[in-house]
């Protein structure tokens, strides 16, 4: 994916993902509470865990797509030349 160097565009993308993450986090807790609140077992079922896990994987994929457009940095500054 092409690297973007426009600071304004990068800030917009960063802000967008942060909002997506926070919404995702709320959804994860809401789903987990709904799935387990009235469940009395000591151990979770596979489906309870998978429901939450899928949302986490989706968030990771979205983050990878968005942040792969950022110039890789070291000490917060873009690395000059190719990454390794």
């Amino acid at each position, binding site marked *: 994916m092409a690297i973007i160097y426009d600071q304004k565009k*990068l800030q917009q993308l*960063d802000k967008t*993902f*942060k909002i997506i*993450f926070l919404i995702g*986090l709320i959804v*994860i*807790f809401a789903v*987990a*509470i709904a*799935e*387990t*609140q009235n*469940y009395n077992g*000591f*151990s*979770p079922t*596979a489906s*309870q*865990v998978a429901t*939450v*896990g899928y949302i*986490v994987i989706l*968030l*990771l994929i979205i*983050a*990878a797509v968005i*942040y*792969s457009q*950022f*110039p*890789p*940095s*070291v*000490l*917060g*500054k*873009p*690395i000059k030349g190719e*990454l*390794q």
Partner: protein
Amino acid sequence: MITFTAPLWVGILIGFIIGAAAEAWGIGNPETLIRLAKWEDRLFVDCILLGVAIATPVMYGLYAAGVGFHWSPKALYLIGVGLGGLLFGIGLAISGYFPGSTWMALGEGRRDAIYAVFGGLVGAAAWTALFQTPAGQWLVNTLNFGSQVIGATHPAGKEYLVPWSGLTPLDLFIFSLIYAGVLFTIAYFLPRYKGGQHSCIRATLKGEKISDFERAKRLDTAMYLTYGGLPYDDNSVAKKLNEYWAVESNVTRFYMLSVGGIVGLTVVAEMFMHQIFGESTTYSWMAGHVFLPDFKYSQIVFKGIGWEPFSDIGTLLGSFFAAIFLTRRFTAFRKNIPPSWQKRFGDNEAIRALGAFGGTALMMFGARMANGCASGHILSGLLQMSLSGWEFLIMVMIGMLVTARIVYGER
């Protein structure tokens, strides 16, 4: 006795706190653990010592005051725990991962963590297959002294300890104070960086300024922690975290102590609410559901795992949150090979993938053989003053240091 059991979803919250704190420390980066194995950066040892030194007296103090905990010191079966610890240390030195740090690294967007997770599943499945054989049973039943902590025995599944003859919970609290004092002293005297000219106590008492050597070590550490990550401003929290606090050579300063306290006390809260903090059983749980549902070990894990799959998801989420919002170390799954590995094996990604996969498989096989890992045996185990936790830690150190010397030693 005051007891409480929280619903399963709370496990996500517990894992989130620990994952975020550990990511801020830098433990999600495999280079940190490879440098530990090379005995170049003792951050992880100091973190564990500080966390345990803060939390153990709190837990035993509350216990003496009548608060019940979901104790779970692992059984002390000398051969299985010892051999498992040795294999765990060897695998950790090769891969740069322990079970919990694979989730933290995924949260940081590290590509080699994907190979490590699959390696972990293979290692867990291998132990599941071995467990029901005569060899597996011999490993876990020979010289098995049960669940022992310093001064007491834990009856399985109970929220209390049975003190050794003549002792009381108040005596255990006094033991925990001495125990904490010893651990804090070790952390205080052990320089974080190999070659560091002074320990924390000398630096504090004499007000010695940081040496050029340690300044260079801090810069080097900050560089590998942030390599391939996201940009941040000079006035940001990320700059303070990456370039000052997380690379601090004096581990008894405020930042390190407060993170140690957060991690240790979160484990105490978890033990009050549901169970100990562990990370490797989830791999056996996943391997059981995916590959080996009818195996005896899988059945045991399905019944006894508790909220650990949720706390593992929370660990990943906490690290993910910290890598995006706090440290900016999210690397978007781009190629990013740990410097120590690159120096020894080059930057061929297939070789690194093989190392992450194979090393984590070996590490996980050892963890399941010993019935615990860096979280269950070392963090939670040492916090309970567990004897099996100490055996595991000693064997891990031996396996890790010897392997790192062979694999990464100067040639």
